[in-house]
């Protein structure tokens, strides 16, 4: 965007003739810019320095120690798998739902008042702290209708409400505004003429959306999805409150389940190989990279700084990669220009 700048007529020494106040302001601007670079460099280099010391192959593929005695021992396999599961559930819900809302808002939006309310609702979720979403999730998922989404300690008490499914569902809410925003922006960037051309060829509105508009805004939708994914991967409050932030995924197999049995309408699945354990894992507690940073730091119970640094390093790497992915998607988008009629 250098073109938007003012021309530099006097070259390098131009500020020499400025009043002192202006020169001080210029100096402050430079200081702010450099401070920004230095902060980022300091954070990244420090995390690399600490993280690379801890990192090893066994860290990535070994399970963490069991129980409170094993806190701080072993590898990070469970948190990594946990991060993948939560991110997958969250994105799987947020992406289609967000796209549907974006399409409805940009193509239909009738009646007007309803569209405005949905818009404000989504905006409100974007401003809601994730702790609030987390404890609201706990409130909802401990009620009977949603009991099957988490395990019960015993049949008489109310369900735990804490599981991968429940935390993934609440996570989808923090990704939703990003998906809606980016998809909507992309849809609205498509000129009217494109829609009109499609209608002129005899396509219905629904077909136009499916065959023309959504494919044309793929990149915007993908950007929203990746941004949302980044938010999900980085959130800690929902994991700590709604997933239990345990070091290991629990339970893994029916026999090893600390709760001893399954409950509710999904009992019949427990005998099925592969699916049974999977369902039980999804309904069980666990942790992610963020929660293992939190729990291994002095603020948590583990107090194993090395482990926390290692998890934080992997997390940071993941965030940088996602950032890069957004960059790649955006770079491709620039090539696509709608030729004006």
């Amino acid at each position, binding site marked *: *965007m*250098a073109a*938007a*700048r*003012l021309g530099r007529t006097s070259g390098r020494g131009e*500020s020499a003739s400025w009043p002192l106040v*202006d020169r001080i*302001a*210029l100096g*402050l*601007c430079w200081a702010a*810019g450099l*401070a*920004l*670079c230095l*902060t980022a460099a300091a*954070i990244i280099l420090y*995390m690399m320095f600490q993280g690379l010391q801890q990192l090893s192959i066994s860290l990535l593929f070994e399970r963490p120690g069991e129980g409170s005695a094993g806190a701080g021992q072993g590898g990070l396999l469970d948190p990594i798998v946990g991060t993948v599961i939560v991110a997958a559930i969250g994105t799987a819900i947020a992406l289609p*739902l967000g796209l*549907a*809302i974006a399409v*409805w808002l940009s193509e*239909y939006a009738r009646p007007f008042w*309803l569209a405005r*309310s*949905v818009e404000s609702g989504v*905006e*409100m*979720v*974007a*401003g*809601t*702290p994730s*702790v*609030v*979403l987390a*404890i*609201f999730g706990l*409130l*909802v998922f*401990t009620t009977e209708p949603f009991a099957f989404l988490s395990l019960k300690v015993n049949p008489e008490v109310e369900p735990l409400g804490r599981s991968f499914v429940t935390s993934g569902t609440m996570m989808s809410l923090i990704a939703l505004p990003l998906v809606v925003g980016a998809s909507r922006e992309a849809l609205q960037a498509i000129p009217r003429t494109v829609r009109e051309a499609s209608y002129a060829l005899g396509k*219905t*509105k*629904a*077909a136009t959306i*499916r065959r023309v508009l959504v494919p044309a805004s793929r990149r915007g939708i993908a950007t929203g999805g990746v941004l949302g994914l980044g938010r999900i991967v*980085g959130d*800690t*409050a929902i994991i*700590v409150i709604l997933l239990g932030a345990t070091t290991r995924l629990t339970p893994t197999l029916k026999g090893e389940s600390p709760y001893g049995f399954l409950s509710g309408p999904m009992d019949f699945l427990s005998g099925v190989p592969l699916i049974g354990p999977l369902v039980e894992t999804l309904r069980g507690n666990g942790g992610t990279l*963020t929660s293992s940073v939190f729990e291994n*730091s*002095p*603020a948590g119970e583990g107090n194993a700084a090395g482990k*926390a640094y290692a998890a934080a390093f992997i997390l*940071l790497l993941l*965030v940088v990669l996602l*950032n890069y992915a*957004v*960059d790649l998607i955006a770079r491709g988008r620039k090539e696509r220009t709608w030729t004006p009629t």
Partner: protein
Amino acid sequence: MTVSYRQPARPQGAPATPGARRRGWSDQRAERVLGALAVTVLVFIVGMVIFVFANAWPSFRENGLAWFADPPGDLTVDQQIFDIFNSPAREEFWEYGLNTWPLLWGTFLSTAGAVVFGVVFAVLAAVFIVEFAPPAVNKVLEPVVRLLAAVPSVIYGLIGILVLVPLVDRVLVTDAIKDSVAGVLTIDGSSLLVAVVILTVMISPIMIAIIVDALRGIPRAWTEGAAALGANRWRVMWTVSLRASRPAIIAAVVLASARAIGEAIMLSMVAGSSGFAPNPLDGFLFFLEPIRPYAATIVDNREGLTVAPFGDTIYAFAAVLLVSALFLSLAGWAAKQPLKRYGVQV
């Protein structure tokens, strides 16, 4: 002239085109399904607000406006929370007494501190990016801003608790300071100061991104006109561009405040986690005193959410956060309105 391109409805009784089913949904059905999904999400959100308020109500009802007041006498807010947690099982003996002024004050101090420092820093940095930075520096700065905005808060918290807190403890906290508050407070480096510093780093990138967008949206004729009248490049930014982007700066402040108020994990790690209200009259000590905002209080007390009076109290904190989020999103919407006149997208 606007023309409606809605498809004419198929005449009653006319046969559907062969294969219509395979070609996808009809318009009406698509609209209904998409609308239903949108409404479902809306209902969920409205349900969230109602649920949280319904659960929070007992705590507000029992305390009235004193909920926001200072705890009376020797009572501390932490003691009150402890009493609520241990209140008897029978409903008529449930303990609700709570005065949360220290938490409110802590929330305000950390948010206001970070936003005030952050907005000054963000304006300067945004002007630098838009006007002064050499192109090579800009190539680095833009990804840096986005990266800083994307770093998870728990990583900021980790750096805070393992680097900044010990640093402050070693450098700024002398034995004399520790002795002067012995028995009342523990000063160990986790403090308002560290909380504000890290929060500033966390929220600045959001503000920078918004202000940069607005500065770039300023019509070129305005800045060139000012330059033609003899203003230098800083003066052009200060008197024309920044002035015209004031609504964007307000929008940035609003968004950043929303993030700062809701920040829980990082603050529970570095802010000291003690329901103490730092006193500005303490001089330098003020900055070293611990705080605990509402959001961090929720995280710190996550274990007891299902116990009735205690859970209600925690939901009351959440209700306060929800109300402030609601107000901030309203304020943000209002702040953005003047921008639309210039066609600036925020």
